[in-house]
């Protein structure tokens, strides 16, 4: 992979040089600070209000800058970079329309607790509030969807603000932080001294749990006959997947992981029941409803998981481990709240965790149920089934790829049929359900992991929301394999209209979409199409062999639905099982 500024200097030499106090512009302070924060890749799009910043970037080679074709592509790429690496994702946009084009991506990151530092330009300070050309109150607009935000008013504050922003984004419950920099601030000069300490009064996330609460959890486990673990994205964000594995081994408690928790626990293990919720496994959903102890580890009881809240886990004592105290008791009343970092909590719990001895019958019951009710679909020899395609992707990659998805049916099929064993291998927009996310997030994931295979699974709808970013794959030789499961329709909407709106198909027909192979080739990306199994295997293997980016369109059956399905307003054990056999 070759990018615009690929040669980086020796890291130590560079850091030493950048730490020297020097009178420089706000723009140079920004660039130096980013390097000192360990940033190696920034996604952005220049414009009037960030011209000083881009001027400072002319010939700059201390990090890579990827020029996307749309600000939305930039922020989703930064998001994918952060999710796949655990580092803070960074993007830059200009004021006004550039900044507002980031809003969907900021909200996406906020809902899924993804650490981002979002840098926007603004009009010069004296013009703020005058409806100046390309002015927008971006800190005001994004206030509900950022963890914190700054409007920089003095160049002397800039270094501190950037350091604080990285700290806030990547500690506690992670999230996006926005820094709005007026044009004059990026031009003004001051003495830059790197900021290395951080002190934010009133901000000190609770990392270590209350020991007594952990003791209560251990006691509850020994007493439980039907215990169950519900693990979420917090396990991955805290880096606590190994501790989770140890906890499950020690307690021998069955486990289900949410959509964002996929990869937090190896999917092949006996105790793993699959994903719960609206399109979760039969066994996971039934087990939640029958459990007498539910241990929620870093998940937030989203309504796609709980179904009808009043009927959720009716027999269970609830333990909730979360770094964000506000999540505890927000949706589901909690019996044993444990506030703390998941990894730290599990490390402490593992010191005293014992096997849940009373749960033998329960384990046997769930194991049998799991064998009896796996995800399934009716395969076809005439048409390509999307589930079959995902299974093929899994088999041909041994489950080792990083998979990003867009939102809709293909996302659920990917979650169901691609089996994840490692954290940070699954990048998907859960909370906000953002169409257009899948493809650009794969670019970010690939930038963070140049040596891994990155597959982006998309529908024909979502692919058309950020398809322009094919250009940057071609130019920068970013070798993402873009899969399009083309059913010529907005599939998930079609499914709801079929099942809930009495077959009244309203405005879902995507026929008239571009020829995706030609579209790819127009951007200089290799394009493939398959309409049956034989072609599918052949073109996919060819795409894998191809060293650069590739778009592979699989023309799949239009009427295919995602099952099981829990209709909104039902409890999660009221599943429509569909026509699978």
């Amino acid at each position, binding site marked *: 992979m070759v990018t615009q500024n690929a040669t980086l200097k020796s890291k130590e030499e560079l850091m030493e040089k950048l730490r020297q106090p020097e009178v420089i512009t706000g723009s140079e302070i920004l660039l130096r600070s980013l390097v000192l924060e360990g940033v190696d890749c920034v996604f952005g799009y220049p414009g009037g209000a960030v011209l000083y910043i881009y001027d400072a970037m002319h010939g700059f080679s201390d990090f890579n800058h990827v020029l996307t074709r749309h600000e939305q592509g930039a922020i989703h790429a930064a998001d994918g970079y952060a999710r796949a690496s655990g580092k803070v994702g960074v993007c830059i946009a200009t004021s006004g329309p550039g900044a507002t084009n980031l809003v969907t991506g900021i909200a996406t990151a906020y809902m899924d607790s993804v650490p981002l530092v979002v840098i926007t330009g603004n009009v010069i300070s004296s013009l703020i509030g005058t409806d100046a050309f390309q002015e927008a109150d971006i800190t005001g607009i994004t206030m509900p969807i950022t963890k914190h935000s700054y*409007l920089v008013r003095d160049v002397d504050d800039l270094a501190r603000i950037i350091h604080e922003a990285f700290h806030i984004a990547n500690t506690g*419950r992670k999230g996006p932080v926005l820094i709005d920099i007026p044009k004059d601030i990026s031009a003004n000069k001051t003495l830059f001294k790197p900021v290395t300490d951080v002190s934010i009064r009133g901000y000190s996330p609770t990392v270590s749990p209350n020991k007594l609460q952990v003791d209560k959890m251990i006691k509850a486990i020994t007493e439980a006959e039907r215990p169950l673990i519900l693990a979420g994205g917090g396990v991955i964000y805290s880096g606590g997947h190994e501790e989770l594995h140890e906890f499950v081994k020690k307690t021998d408690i069955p486990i289900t992981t949410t959509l964002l928790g996929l990869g937090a626990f190896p999917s092949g293990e006996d105790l793993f029941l699959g994903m719960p919720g609206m399109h979760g496994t039969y066994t996971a959903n039934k087990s939640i409803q029958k459990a007498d102890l539910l241990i929620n580890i870093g998940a937030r009881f989203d309504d796609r998981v709980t179904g009808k809240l009043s009927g959720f886990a009716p027999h269970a004592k609830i333990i909730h481990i979360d770094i964000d105290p506000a999540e505890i008791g927000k949706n589901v009343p909690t019996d044993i709240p444990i506030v703390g970092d998941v990894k730290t909590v599990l490390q402490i719990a593992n010191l005293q965790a014992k096997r849940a001895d009373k749960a033998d019958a329960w384990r046997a019951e769930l194991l049998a149920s799991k064998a009896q009710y796996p995800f399934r679909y009716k395969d076809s020899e005439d048409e390509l089934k999307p589930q079959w395609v995902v299974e093929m992707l899994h088999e041909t990659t041994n489950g080792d790829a990083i998979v990003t998805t867009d939102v809709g049916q293909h996302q659920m099929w990917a979650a169901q049929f691609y089996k994840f064993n490692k954290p940070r291998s699954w990048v998907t927009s859960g909370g906000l359900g953002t169409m257009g996310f899948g493809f650009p997030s794969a670019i970010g994931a690939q930038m963070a992991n140049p040596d891994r295979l990155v597959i982006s699974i998309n529908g024909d709808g979502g692919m058309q929301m950020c398809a322009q970013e094919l250009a940057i794959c071609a130019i920068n030789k970013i070798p993402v394999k873009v899969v399009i499961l083309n059913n010529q329709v907005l599939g998930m909407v079609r499914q709801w209209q079929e099942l809930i709106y009495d077959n009244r198909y309203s405005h879902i027909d995507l026929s008239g979409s571009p020829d995706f192979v030609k579209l790819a080739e127009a951007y200089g990306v290799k394009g493939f199409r398959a309409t049956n199994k034989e072609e599918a295997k052949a073109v996919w293997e060819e795409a894998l062999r191809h060293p650069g980016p590739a778009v592979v369109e699989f023309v799949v059956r239009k009427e295919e639905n995602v099952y099981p399905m829990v209709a909104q307003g039902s409890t999660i054990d009221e599943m429509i099982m569909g026509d699978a056999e």
Partner: protein
Amino acid sequence: MIKHTIAVIVNDQPGVLQRVSGLFGRRGFNIESITVGTSEEVGLSRMVIVTSGDEQTLEQITKQLYKLIDVIKVIHLSSNPIVARELALIKVSAEPATRPEIFGVVETFRAAVVDIGTHSVMVQVVGDTEKIDAMVELLKPYGIRELSRTGVTALNRGNSR
């Protein structure tokens, strides 16, 4: 619905009122009154918010407020004895014939007449919300032309905080 009075100590930063009031708005929490002013410490402001809701709502309000980086401390004032005061300025129609009656009401409530016009007087009253409500009720028959209330500010009594 139970009324709660909470104090929120915040960094004196631009936009902090927007952060706090926006949080109440988008999460569906009720604001009956909100006041902001300086606190005993330079750089910190004290907001006093009167809200209503059950205990679980109050807990969520507190936790969500703590998520804001600029929020330093949230104090549930009304869980302890408090002194809560509001100020109102009431401009009431007053012809010479009715003035003595109005002055009588003002005196009874230990309020003050702070301005007199040819056809009106302006009354200033300080007290808890109920007292001001009562005062307003009594002045209504004379014709209230303009009314401005500040909302509640409050502190805990004695040494508790």
